[in-house]
């Protein structure tokens, strides 16, 4: 089944990425022009996407590391409530985008607060920080999960040994726990990055007309289905697939997931 609905479509996408415009549907004209053009015309889109995805993933790590750490080491009461809340972002980026869109819309609930701080609501609405914030909420569960798994794998006795030998709690954390949970940070960052790459609704609703339309996911949609340059659209798609495959391969190599 994976073969039929994952690999066959991908192969078709790959073939189509070498055809000119929409000639794939009639009499295919094969060319590599798409890939040559891609880095010239869509460089801004690539930059934007990587910037947004990368920074959002970093915010995720900063927010999610303490969350995972506290969940595993400190929390006894209400742990299940926190776990359950972490499912909510998985419902979809569309709702996150929509919620935030209304929140900071001029005339919305916090518009006057923003204005009293000297920020115009429209500027806040279609801005990079808002988009980053939304992306960070969207992919937070993946980061918390990945870091949590690697924290679980650390033997508590290492930390206890460090404490016994006279290290302060902060020293123990920085010298023992943090380095040992590094694989979790890396896989968390990569997973989050991969998911942010594909976010469509958040940039389009919150990023505004300039930033929002110049990200890869939206550009794939527009080039292939609006301007029917299917060849170019799928070339962009192939780039994204290649990136995500590398990410997934690295993640499965590093992570001590369910398979080990």
């Amino acid at each position, binding site marked *: 089944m994976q073969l039929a609905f994952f690999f066959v479509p991908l192969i078709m996408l790959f073939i189509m990425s070498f055809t000119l415009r929409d000639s794939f549907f009639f009499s295919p004209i094969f060319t590599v022009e798409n890939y040559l053009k891609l880095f010239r015309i869509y460089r801004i889109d690539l930059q934007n996407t990587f910037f947004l995805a990368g920074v959002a993933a970093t915010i995720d790590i900063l927010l999610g590391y303490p969350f995972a750490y506290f969940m595993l080491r400190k929390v006894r009461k209400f742990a299940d409530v926190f776990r359950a809340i972490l499912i909510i972002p998985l419902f979809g980026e569309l709702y996150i985008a929509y919620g*935030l869109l209304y929140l900071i819309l001029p005339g919305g609930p916090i518009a006057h607060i923003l204005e009293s701080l000297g920020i115009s609501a429209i500027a806040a609405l279609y801005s990079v920080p808002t988009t980053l914030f939304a992306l960070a909420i969207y992919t937070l569960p993946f980061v918390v999960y990945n870091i949590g798994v690697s924290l679980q794998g650390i033997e508590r006795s290492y930390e206890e040994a460090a404490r016994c030998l006279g290290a302060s709690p902060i020293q123990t954390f920085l010298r023992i726990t943090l380095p040992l949970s590094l694989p979790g940070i890396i896989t968390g960052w990569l997973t989050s990055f991969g998911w942010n790459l594909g976010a469509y609704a958040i940039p389009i609703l919150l990023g505004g007309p300039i930033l929002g339309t110049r990200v890869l996911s939206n550009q794939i949609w527009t080039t292939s289905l609006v301007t029917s340059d299917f060849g170019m659209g799928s070339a962009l798609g192939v780039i994204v697939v290649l990136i995500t495959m590398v990410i997934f391969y690295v993640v499965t190599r590093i992570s001590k997931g369910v398979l080990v």
Partner: protein
Amino acid sequence: MNVQNKEKVYSAIVYLYLVFVCILILMPLGITLYRAIFNYDENGNLVISINAYFTISEGFWEKLQTSLAIALVTVAVTMAVSLPVAYGIVRYEFRGKKLLFTLLNGVWYVPGVTYGLSLVLAYYFVYRFLLGFWGFVAAYSTGFMLLSLLTTIVAFKNFDPVYEEAARCLGAGRLQTFLRVTLPLIGPGITAGVILVLVLSLNEFITALLISLPTRVKTAPLQVFSDIRHAGVRPFVAAEATVLQLVSLAIVIIYLKFFGTKYLRGSIMI
């Protein structure tokens, strides 16, 4: 400050932080709900009403039914596939296990836009008979296979093979053992996969946006998106968005009430 007080202050900070992050996560849903039920009447007073839910556009409820049907069939398909696969992965050693797993689940990492675009092509040229309802089912079950596979693998791992061996020793066949011993015992464990696939395929949006193009089948999230694009933040759009989220949330909460988070851990939860 003595040690006990220090401890108390520390745990207060911990809980404050967790609650802060949870508020961030809940904020979009909360705001959407606020928009749907708080309205201004003619005099400019703030009133609470659920009127917005009665002004939801007509086709929405129908599409919600379609979405639910698609989600349920998707769950059945993913389970039928991932049970034997997970069983094989856990019970048998073979070379290239990790590679197989990677190949099976790479799709989870492929962004919906790209996956949707490639599926549109495949449906259009190869699987014409699948256009429509079954196209969605095929796309979703392939896309969310990772979740059901992960939870099933966890379930099989927590299951002691001793019971199986005992059944086999007592003369049960391979299939009989699986159906009468293994399946009932891992039952609760695989519910986690069921619930995740159900909720995610109910809410899937970007893949659906693309594969709905050649057909006329539309799901509820698509309606929400097109209403957002056309009607902006009017209350009825907020109502639509909350309906979907609340249905999903209700499914999750009912599930957690019965089973707790025990079976979800190790797959997507810590």
